[in-house]
């Protein structure tokens, strides 16, 4: 994310090049506008979800069960990072902050991501369970957000939904393969799913902000039925039960996080904080 905030970028290949505008124009959409405070807050929610999970997926590069998975999880993380950049860029414009300011210079209480996204990578099955839930949620969300009255959010959603569709497919393939594979892979898939399931409900809670953004935001509770209808047949095919048990109290949208987020942010932010303003 460092590249975007440097004005007048010059690279060795191109000699001294005056770049007359910053990379991302303030308006991502022709005729777009700066977000109001509430819209900026909503963009922050969605941007933080994408940023936190993108950062976590990057860890898998060189550590996945096979080379193709290093590449797959890396690419999925890159897509999500792209979504986060667009959303945070939009969220920050209202208060004059760049996407880098938002990513690197906020602490846990200022992050608005839901708890699902900060759950540890765990073993591969845990990461797949998290992806499975996240990709289905994001697919339903972005599908509807394309009709948002806010042109920028609609544009970001239209771009993102096609990519998230691939992520959904990737997770489904692995759920089936692990659940119907060996006894060990099945045991791990069952454990991964039941460890991640408590964080599902928070995704579908309607916070007061949503009431103020009628026609702009997607009402989270309205996604639940479609989410269940997509998830349940996959679990049935994988011969898995929908997990039951405790439900996390959530709180991510209000800045209340588990200890996991601090570790994620520490790693993500350490370089930017040690060398403020550094660029490649």
């Amino acid at each position, binding site marked *: 994310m460092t*590249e975007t905030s440097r004005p007048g*970028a010059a*690279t060795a290949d*191109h*000699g001294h*090049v*005056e*770049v*007359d*505008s910053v*990379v*991302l*124009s303030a*308006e*991502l*959409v*022709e005729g777009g506008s700066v977000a109001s405070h509430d819209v900026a807050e909503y963009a922050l929610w969605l941007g933080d979800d994408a940023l936190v999970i993108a950062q976590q997926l990057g860890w898998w590069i060189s550590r996945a069960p096979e080379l*193709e998975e290093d*590449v*797959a999880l*890396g*690419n*999925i*993380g*890159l*897509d*999500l*990072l*792209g*979504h986060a*950049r*667009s959303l945070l860029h939009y969220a920050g414009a209202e208060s004059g902050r760049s996407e880098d300011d938002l990513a690197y210079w906020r602490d846990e209480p200022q992050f608005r991501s839901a708890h699902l996204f900060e759950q540890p990578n765990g073993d591969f099955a845990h990461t797949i369970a998290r992806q499975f839930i996240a990709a289905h949620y994001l*697919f*339903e969300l972005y*599908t509807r957000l394309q009709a948002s009255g806010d*042109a*920028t959010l*609609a*544009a*970001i959603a*239209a*771009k*993102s*939904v*096609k*990519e998230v*569709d*691939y992520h959904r*497919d*990737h997770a489904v393939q692995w759920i089936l393969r692990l659940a119907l594979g060996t006894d060990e892979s099945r045991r791990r898939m069952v454990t991964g799913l039941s460890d991640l399931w408590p964080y599902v409900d928070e995704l579908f809670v309607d916070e007061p902000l949503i009431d103020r953004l009628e026609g702009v935001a997607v009402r989270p509770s309205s996604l639940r039925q*479609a989410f269940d*209808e*997509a998830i349940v*047949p996959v679990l049935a095919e994988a011969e898995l039960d929908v997990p039951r048990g405790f439900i996390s109290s959530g709180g991510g949208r209000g800045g209340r996080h588990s200890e996991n987020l601090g570790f994620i942010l520490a790693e993500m932010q350490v370089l930017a904080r040690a060398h403020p303003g550094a660029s490649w």
Partner: protein
Amino acid sequence: MQSVARPRPVDEASRRAWDIAAQVVDPEIPVLTIEDLGVLRSVAVGEDGAVTVSLTPTYSGCPALEAMRDDVTSALHAAGYRSVAVELVLAPAWTTDWMSEDGKAKLREYGIAAPTGHSTVRPAGAVRLQLAVKCPRCSSLNTRELARFGSTSCKALYECRDCLEPFDYFKVL
């Protein structure tokens, strides 16, 4: 959709700047220009001679976009345009449908299978249907997907069951 793929400007000054910007190539797939890809969206030269270029990303996180932006800027500077602004535009969202036929032919020649079929988002629960992908080396349709995510965001990794070579496939988006 195809009609908006390569909106070459009508006014003389902007068209001249477009033709310069249009020669910039994708750093990862150097046989394709940004015009072939459909990434170059608009070029406008103002009365004061300032150029405004709009690019759209292929995939949201594609790092090649930043190289393209720098290359467009330096190509226009080299051609004598002093003031160049490059904007990123997300809407309408890029699709492989915008890739030119010429571009698809160049891709195949380069050893990358071109996108097969048109971009659609499946309704929830629908099965992803993939048309047979033709091996760019021996033209066999007897190929299989090894990994849906390949060497860059836009590609999947395939294998030809006849000539046994692995190859990249530019997947439909």
